């Protein structure tokens, strides 16, 4: 059996003897981001149902993994290479939520792209394709003597792809400064974890690549943060990659086109709810006198106001225009493509 690192138990008490790295102020910030993540998901699922938002994969239930991992990074020098279910990690790294929201609202314009200076790569839908790229990024940063660490995200499903193996293998050989952060949320659409791999803990796979693997309770933001900081520090010290398996649970559908009632056992879902990552932080903070109903009310209001601001700002963004269709395919498009562009613009303007 592999040890599953844990600090904050589901009942909000601390595992005796543990000393979390995260101080209370930082924990309050983590809680704010987790609450924002939850409330945002709920809000945009509503928008999606009204046809105002694109296909969306919520982070419901995974907030501690998403936020705790990202908070281990220094956004001014480190990089995040996402899959697609790490929205608040990317926001914490500096990609403004209103720009991401606008993108999901169909405003895929140059104005809403990842801003200059924000060390985040685009969402990756082609599963695991981001990993060899992340290894290359980390390797290159190291070659140039930059004091930077890459945090690359992957789902337990995506980790079955060949690219996962190739990326981790190369990272091990090059001792690249990278953390492979796996969110094992027990599901890849309808495929349960046990059908994804016969390995008892995904963290064990790291041994095959010559670097450490750690399993952590992914619903425990204190433990996730600790484990992530250790891996980041290791990378920063030139000791190479790590694999973190954050064991969590997808407390929603795969994405807004999914219907989990076809494959999900409701009892399992109810059981998972008992391990909610946000509730346990609230219980803990309440017990140490840093949280109460009054604070909860204020926090809820602040989060709601922030989401309203974000949605309004996203709505105010300009939408796509025909002139944008051919943008950013080439630095200098071939003449034939330019001709197609001219024909296209003539045909849309003719209507």
């Amino acid at each position, binding site marked *: 059996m592999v040890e599953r690192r844990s600090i904050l138990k589901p009942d909000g008490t601390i595992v005796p003897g543990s000393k979390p790295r995260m101080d209370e102020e930082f924990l309050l910030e983590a809680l704010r981001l987790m609450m924002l993540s939850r409330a945002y998901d709920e809000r945009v699922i509503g928008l999606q149902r009204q046809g105002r938002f694109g*296909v969306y994969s919520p982070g419901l239930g995974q907030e501690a993994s998403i936020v705790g991992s990202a908070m281990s990074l220094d956004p001014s020098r480190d990089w995040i290479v996402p899959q697609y279910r790490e929205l608040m990690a990317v926001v914490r790294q500096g990609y403004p939520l209103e720009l991401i929201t606008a993108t999901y609202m169909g405003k895929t314009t140059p104005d809403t792209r990842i801003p200059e200076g924000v060390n985040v790569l685009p969402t990756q839908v082609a599963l695991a394709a981001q990993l060899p790229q992340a290894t290359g990024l980390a390797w290159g940063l190291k070659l140039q003597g930059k004091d930077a660490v890459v945090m690359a995200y992957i789902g337990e499903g995506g980790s079955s*792809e060949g690219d996962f193996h190739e990326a981790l293998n190369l990272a091990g050989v090059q001792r690249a400064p990278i953390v492979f952060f796996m969110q094992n949320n027990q599901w890849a659409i309808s495929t349960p974890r046990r059908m994804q791999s016969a390995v008892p803990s995904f963290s064990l796979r790291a041994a095959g690549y010559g670097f450490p693997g750690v399993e952590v309770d992914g619903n425990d933001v204190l433990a996730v943060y600790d484990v992530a900081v250790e891996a980041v520090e290791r990378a920063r010290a030139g000791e190479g990659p790590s694999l973190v398996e954050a064991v969590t649970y997808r407390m929603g559908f795969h994405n807004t086109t999914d219907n989990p009632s076809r*494959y999900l056992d409701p009892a399992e879902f109810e059981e998972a709810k008992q391990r909610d990552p946000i509730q346990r932080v609230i219980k803990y903070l309440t017990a140490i006198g840093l949280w109460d109903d009054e604070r909860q009310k204020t926090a809820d209001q602040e989060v709601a106001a922030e989401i309203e601001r974000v949605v309004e700002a996203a709505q105010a963004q300009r939408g796509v225009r025909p002139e*944008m269709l051919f943008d950013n395919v080439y630095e200098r498009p071939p003449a034939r*493509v330019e001709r*197609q562009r001219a024909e296209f613009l003539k*045909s849309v303007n003719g209507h």
Partner: protein
Amino acid sequence: MPQRNIVEAINNALVEEMERDPRVMLLGLDVGKLGGVFRTTTGLIERFGDRRVVDTPLAEASILGASLGLALSGMVPVAEIQFLGFTAQGFHQIGPQLAKYRHRSRGRFPCQVTIRAPFGGGIRSPEFHSDAVEAQFVQSPGLKIVMPSNAYDAKGMLLEAIRDPDPVLFCEPDRLYRLGRMEVPDGDYRVPFGKASVVREGDDITLVAWSAASELCQRAADTLAADGIEACVVDLRTLVPLDVETLVKAVAKTGRAVVVHEAPLSAGFGAEVVATLMEEAFYDLDAPVARVASYDIPFPAASMEHWYLPSLERVVAAARRTVSL
């Protein structure tokens, strides 16, 4: 006679073939309890069990490579790749391997494998889900490429594919999956490969297409008819084998043609169609053959896909222009 849409026709073909031949098995992502992301395999795991309907680990290369091996062992695998664009993650098992295995083994090891994969734009899918990459496979001799556009053909060609001793890539037009129902008989029937269908007769121009673009051309023909232009519509049904005879006859008769496809223009299969017409129908042509395709750019975000894909307006305009020459 039963009415079925494409999803139901595919499901029905799979059920009947699995009943008939115990060697047939399905493997892919989420094909079990979920019934596939488009529900084409609904009810099959309940009916045939999880040894014959297998949710695999998330890895296309192993779905495809293992299908090859399963076939060599004596099984008849029908692999589902969740979206055609994700064949990229296993292409090395298709083009260089599956397609060539008969040849590589000098006839010793043919591969009776069917690969099913939905594709196509117009349903606001996320990135990579819409890519019409069918032409990429045409450069893999040994592989047959099947592109049904309606429920009747989908069932008849899927049965043909599963029984074909050679590997077949069966591309399903996701935009048409539930567009409407038509008569699809119960029981065994087959739609042979290499037989294009003339879905509409007309004397003024020939529209050539396959898969979802065939449905588009039929609408374009309706619009053109209102203007007094009678368009013949040829649905190629399979790219490999290509029915040169029906194609050439239909184009020679009208002397004018427009080829329509969802893939980008350059080196799309339309280029092969036009080159074939140059070789086989040059002296019967009254005007240059036109192509309407997607542009030579990556498939854009959902909010822009209607600008990118061939539209009714573009097909009609190209047909009018070709008729006026």
